[in-house]
């Protein structure tokens, strides 16, 4: 059983920045960085095994498969109960925040930039507490 962390964003510098913070703040030792929703979906499909769990830090506005399209696509997957998502976006639009609540996998809606406090909130989320900091 593995607990994996995927950082999905179309900007490479953001991916590196978020990876630095995730690793240094001890959320996960070896997160995967992925540049769009479709690649993230493929990664999970290709690597998933029963019992695996995933936390996805998901950007919304990406070319190709957007964050919303990724969330729509996983609704049809039987393994979607093992996916947790923290939306990580620059959008401060209320409609985006409301839309995020429509997806059961979404645990948090984080407005960029990602800072230490956000990592702490994820770690302490009731559904994840004592879980993700073991993903090594």
């Amino acid at each position, binding site marked *: 059983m593995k607990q994996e962390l995927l950082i999905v964003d179309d900007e490479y510098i953001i991916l590196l920045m978020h*990876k630095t913070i995730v690793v240094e703040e001890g959320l996960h030792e070896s997160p995967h960085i992925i540049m769009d929703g479709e690649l993230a979906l493929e990664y999970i499909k290709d690597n998933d095994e029963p019992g695996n769990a995933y936390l996805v830090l998901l950007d919304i506005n990406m070319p190709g498969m957007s964050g919303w399209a990724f969330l729509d696509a996983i609704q049809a997957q039987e393994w979607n109960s093992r996916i947790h998502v923290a939306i990580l976006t620059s959008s401060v639009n209320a409609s985006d925040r409301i839309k995020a609540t429509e997806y059961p996998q979404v645990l948090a809606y984080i407005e960029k930039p990602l800072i230490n406090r956000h990592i702490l909130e994820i770690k302490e989320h009731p559904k994840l507490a004592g879980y993700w900091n073991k993903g090594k």
Partner: protein
Amino acid sequence: MSNRTHHFGDARANQDKWHYRYIVEGLNDPIFILDSECQISYANKACLAVLGYGPDELLGHSFNKFLHKEEAVEIGKNLAGLTQGTGHELHIEHRLLTGNGNWEVFETCGKSLSGQADQPLGMLHLRNITKQKQTGVDLKTQARLLELLMDISTTYINIPLDKLDSSLKKSLEVLGKYIGADRFYIFEYDFKQNISRNTYEWCSDGIEPEIENLQSIPLTEITDWVECHQRGDIMHIPDVFELPIENGVRQILEPQEIKSMIAVPMMDEKQCLGFVGLDSVRVQHCYSNAEKKLLTVFANMLVSIHNRFFTLEALYMQNDKFKQIAWMQSHLVRAPLARMMGLCSLLERGKYSEVSKPEILEGINRSANELDQIIRNISKKTDILNGHDKYI
């Protein structure tokens, strides 16, 4: 004494006969007497005045030959009953061919008579009711016209945009059938592109649609037509073939086999937006004032609808632009800004294992330039919204 009495009786009988003849000849309505073969054996003077036939054209001729063929058989049976003594009275309404070649409507009362040696005869009293009938038809037509105008008004008041298309198609069909047109259509003028475009069309059964062929008519080919409409006048061509052969309008109408047409402009104050029109393909048709009035009301209604949806569309477009600005602010502006904030925060931490310091600085620089461009774009869109786009 008895001779005198007899003489007196004859004189009295002659006087009665003279009185009856005077009455019958003085009547304004035609009176006929038919023999047992339904041939006319007597016709009073009014037959000439009312029917336009002299005695030579009537006496000895069968009454049936003046009847309309759709009614002749049935009425012929009734007349035969009357003149052969099997029916005593009749009261009918029928068409009759008059001397000027017109079919007019008559109310006819008939009665059986006994002639010499009890030979049965039939007497007919005809009354011309064409005018009353026409008045009845006119009243019905007027009532239907009012009903249609009411329908148009109620259909299009507050009609939602998603119902407009189907309602217009239905209206074209209803009005087209009412007027007896072969084709009913709506055209819009596009004075920027200098063309006219057929937007809606209804065709009666057996008439070929032309809408596909009429999507881009150069206004230069129909200058008379356009000028007429721009003045707010109705273009009415009762006979296409009376137009000169080289006339542009004729060259468009003739290949469509149109014999008569009318096109009423859709005027928004002094601006002509397009027109509604009717074609008669099968027969020539001279459009009446009532039909022109109906088309004008319909055209005015279309202008009103156009203006309403034009205003709505402008509002939707403005709303879309506001949405775009909101989206730009939320996503596009904040994206480089959040990136700059994140990279600055990373520099501040002093720990950045996954990324080098030059990469961070380059990222900040790129984000600043991106932000600058986005703000310029937003400014441009706001100017457009405020109507200042001509200064850009």
